[in-house]
């Protein structure tokens, strides 16, 4: 289908600001009379605050006030997991205890040094299995786990059960969570090759580049909060209730966000922004709270680590008959995350496994706050399962691409725990395209070839994430000058989807992009509610809403023209920014004339009446405030049922130096299946960015804690070992299938998360290939692990250790 905007590159409105430094992030703002808040954070991993004596600090010149958990939660802290704004019950090092505001940061810091906080130390635990063992310490005050809607609970295994698991055996204890389908025993019995092993994947911090600094002030009873967010309106919706201010009186300002990766999608993952808001309310001054890298590392989120056991059965023809998983997922210091369930779900979808059983239990540790991180669950397991697939291919004498083709999801398939049908699935096409572009047939002949200390490894990986939501709203407006305003609440995360999804509206109206304004950046510009910009959903979700709103606008435009020029709306067509009689193109009105007439008519044309009944409350406030100004298209997107998958496949060649355990990525080809491509440059960025994240997951990233005191050893970029330019290939080749999804009006689905999973899988597969098919059953696989393996040295780290090696 020939589109005017879809599938075409364009210059997103904010790029100029990014290359000139003019675009503003939260910390770039100042305000007359602004003072500075600094945090006192917990120096110990698990404690209870017994007393805070701030007398001396508050008596200092230039100190304006103190904010504690008692101020934020006068009725007591909520007894649930999740980060609090401030807490008297810290469960991780770096958790904010109090904030103090002063004339400048030095004064604030000096005053904080004069505050005496008495902590009661509580037992802490770093490794979930240590907590799971009978008699082991619990990370939380009410236990070591949290059961949804039930509260804190305690899960304990016998010492023997834990030891048996660490020794690589199937756990026998009752899990918290399960799903299963198919006849697992029969599937295993029918398998010609069965692989069984314990495995571990590391937790590691998000390390978004912009620390979560925020600035707030109150004016005329309204709160203005400059913050950082992946999802402008969805986050604002939740943030208002965290601060305790009615939505109508809350303005969230967020022109640009320096990365989020899952931990700035929803208000409850970034409650620290409420600190300057509350402080400002208390001391009646604008308050800036700058957050340091250490603080960002502590509260900025971390991926859940897995301590797991997997058993996979493959039939002689390569079909994956069975997958049985038992995963202990590390809930960290504040709980959160459903990664383990998603991991099992992902295997079921990616490999169309005939029988799957998932058993999982989440256990806390007094380590970083956990929450969704790019492909939460799907991407950890992608790195574990790919080498297993290779092993099965080798044992069964099947080509490594072939075994993936045999098991691939495709159109008409169902997948996952709920056996949900796909909206569409073009993984076979992606595999074919990738293999051709990579020239797999020729390259595979180099697999495991040795040249001095260098060995070639070839890897193939696949990634999946469900990529599209519904039930959201759209607002578009045509102003009296004939310009189209697309109100977009997606948030400016760096995907440019706030702009690219707006192009669906321009597409409907066939309007040149120069005549379109994307209205975003702050909630007092009156935005519709959108889904949080996470889970690779924005392209699917918000092209649906913007398309629908533009169609509503178009229908109204035709109706107005018919009222003016006679006949029925169905007698009219449109083009070149005019609505005209289908029978006589010369009879018509320009978009500007129609807008002017619509404003005159008012009522349903300008958002003053007849709003869609299901419109979300957040959107209703925006529509009400915009009503009467312009001709409006308003839309509520009815929920859809099926699963719009995002799929990626990646092919990688590495050259492993078996003397150093270091490898060079010689070539990488990564192909997306995300329906119709909306914005090629944006898609390419998601694919290459996801690749860098995948390289980090499979090869480098982890966080470590000192086992004696529970102090974090990884408090910044370097120690967490996020990939630099030197760890990644200087060119990553990208491509896409570009076939439309029928449940999206422009055919689009998301891609951000599987783009990472496929690369992690492919690199893990290549590393294994370069080492004669050795399976580490671990992510990351680091240079020391490789050298130890090559040297035949058994690591003396504790098996399945999480958050530290203790070797």
């Amino acid at each position: 289908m020939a589109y005017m905007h879809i599938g075409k590159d364009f210059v997103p409105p904010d790029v100029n600001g990014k290359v000139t430094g003019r675009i503003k992030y939260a910390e770039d703002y100042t305000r007359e009379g602004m003072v500075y808040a600094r945090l006192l954070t917990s120096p110990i991993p698990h404690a209870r605050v017994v007393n805070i004596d701030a007398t001396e600090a508050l008596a200092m010149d230039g100190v304006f006030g103190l904010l504690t958990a008692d101020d934020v939660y006068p009725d007591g802290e909520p007894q649930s997991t999740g980060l609090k704004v401030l807490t008297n019950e810290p469960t991780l090092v770096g958790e904010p205890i109090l904030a103090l505001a002063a004339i400048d940061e030095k004064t604030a810091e000096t005053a904080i040094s004069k505050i005496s906080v008495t902590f009661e130390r509580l037992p802490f635990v770093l490794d979930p299995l240590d907590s799971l063992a009978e008699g082991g310490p619990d990370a939380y005050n009410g236990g070591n786990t949290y059961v949804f809607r039930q509260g804190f609970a305690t899960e304990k295994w016998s010492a023997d059960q834990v030891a048996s698991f660490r020794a690589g055996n199937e756990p026998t204890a009752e899990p918290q969570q399960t799903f299963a389908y198919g006849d697992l025993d029969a599937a295993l019995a029918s398998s010609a090759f069965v692989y069984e092993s314990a495995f571990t994947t590391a937790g590691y911090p998000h390390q978004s580049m912009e620390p979560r600094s925020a600035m707030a002030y109150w004016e005329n009873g309204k709160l203005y909060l400059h913050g950082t967010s992946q999802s402008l309106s969805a986050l604002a919706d939740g943030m208002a209730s965290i601060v305790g201010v009615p939505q109508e009186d809350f303005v969230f300002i967020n022109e640009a966000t320096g990365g989020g990766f899952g931990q700035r999608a929803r208000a409850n993952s970034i409650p620290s922004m409420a600190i300057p808001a509350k402080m400002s309310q208390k001391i009646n001054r604008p308050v800036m709270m700058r957050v340091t890298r250490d603080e960002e590392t502590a509260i900025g989120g971390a991926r859940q680590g897995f301590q797991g056991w997997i058993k996979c059965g493959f039939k002689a023809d390569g079909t994956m008959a069975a997958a049985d998983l038992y995963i202990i997922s590390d809930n960290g210091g504040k709980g959160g995350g459903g990664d383990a369930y998603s991991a099992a779900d992902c295997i079921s979808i990616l490999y169309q496994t005939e029988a799957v059983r998932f058993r999982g239990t989440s256990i806390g540790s007094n380590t970083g706050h956990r929450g969704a991180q790019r492909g939460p669950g799907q991407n950890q397991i992608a790195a574990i399962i790919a080498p297993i697939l290779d092993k099965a291919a080798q044992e069964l004498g099947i080509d490594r691409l072939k075994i993936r083709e045999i098991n691939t999801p495709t159109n008409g398939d169902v997948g996952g725990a709920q056996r949900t049908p796909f909206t569409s699935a073009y993984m076979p096409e992606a595999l074919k395209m990738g293999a051709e572009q990579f020239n797999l047939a020729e390259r595979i002949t180099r697999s495991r070839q040795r040249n001095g200390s260098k060995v070639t490894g070839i890897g193939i990986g696949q990634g999946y994430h469900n990529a599209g939501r519904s039930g959201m709203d759209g607002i578009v407006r045509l102003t009296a000058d004939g310009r189209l305003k697309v109100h977009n609440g997606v948030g400016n995360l760096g995907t440019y989807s706030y702009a690219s999804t707006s192009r669906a509206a321009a597409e409907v109206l066939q309007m040149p992009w120069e005549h379109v304004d994307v209205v975003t950046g702050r909630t007092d510009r009156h935005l519709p509610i959108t889904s949080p910009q996470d889970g690779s959903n924005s392209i699917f979700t918000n092209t649906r809403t913007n398309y629908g709103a533009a169609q509503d606008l178009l229908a109204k435009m035709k109706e107005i023209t018919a009222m003016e020029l006679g006949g029925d709306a169905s007698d009219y067509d449109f083009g070149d920014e005019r609505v005209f009689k289908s029978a006589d193109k010369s009879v018509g009105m320009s978009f500007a004339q129609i807008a002017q007439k619509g404003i005159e008519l008012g009522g349903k044309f300008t958002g003053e009446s007849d709003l869609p009944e299901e419109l979300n409350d957040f959107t209703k406030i925006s529509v009400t405030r915009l009503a009467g100004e312009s001709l409006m298209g308003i839309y509520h997107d009815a929920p859809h049922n099926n699963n719009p998958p995002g799929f990626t496949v990646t092919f990688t060649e590495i050259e492993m130096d078996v003397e150093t355990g270091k490898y060079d990525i010689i070539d990488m080809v990564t192909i997306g299946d995300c329906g119709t491509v909306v914005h090629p440059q944006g898609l390419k960025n998601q694919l290459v960015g996801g690749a860098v994240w995948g390289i980090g997951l499979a090869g480098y990233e982890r966080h470590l804690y000192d086992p004696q005191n529970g102090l974090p050893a990884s408090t910044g970029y370097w120690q967490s070992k996020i990939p630099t330019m030197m760890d990644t290939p200087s060119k990553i080749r990208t491509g896409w299938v570009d076939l439309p999804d029928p449940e999206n009006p422009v055919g689009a689905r998301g891609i951000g998360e599987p783009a990472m999973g496929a690369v992690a899988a492919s690199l893990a597969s290549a590393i294994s290939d370069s080492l004669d098919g050795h399976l580490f059953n671990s992510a990351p696989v680091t240079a020391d692990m490789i050298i130890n393996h090559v040297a035949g040295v058994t690591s003396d780290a504790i098996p399945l250790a999480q958050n530290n090696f203790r070797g």
Partner: protein
Amino acid sequence: MNLNLTRRRFIKGVIASGAAATTTGVWVAANGASRPAGAVERMIRININGQVRTVDVAPQETLASTLRYKLGLTGTKLGCNRGECGACTVLVDDVSTYACSVLTHSVKNGRVETVEGLEAADGTLHPVQQAFVEELSPQCGYCTPGQIMAAVGLLRENPSPTREEARMGLSGNICRCGSYDSYLDGVMRAAQIG
């Protein structure tokens, strides 16, 4: 950039000024209003983006702090404030330098260039900026000013780098969005636009 050199210069400078530098206390050291014992000139003149600016600088103040908080040049970003990421990269006498890790006093006789100084008076973008727009190099954009300044520094020294040389030249700049490939595409295009 010689990271070791700039770190060493920074540490020497801090010792000379008598200020404390800790990883967690960097904001404080950078913004301190009070003056440690020992006379250090406070009102200094520095050449920033071709203009000589007079600014009141505390002895232990970093260049990033002066630029952002005294001069309002917020294009220079702080990702770590301790020499790990390159978000604060500026040019000092054409050499790309972590502005969070040099003291303002140490560059007072130098020529400082920030991202704000690249655009021509008529709004024409610098070739690196233009190339980064055309290649859509930035994602979230937070590391972008640093990447741009590192690229400008590289291209002054080596106007026609190979992709590998460009990779080396920008390797001191982390991009958590992982947009490295697109930044390198941008540098190579900038070298062509020249």
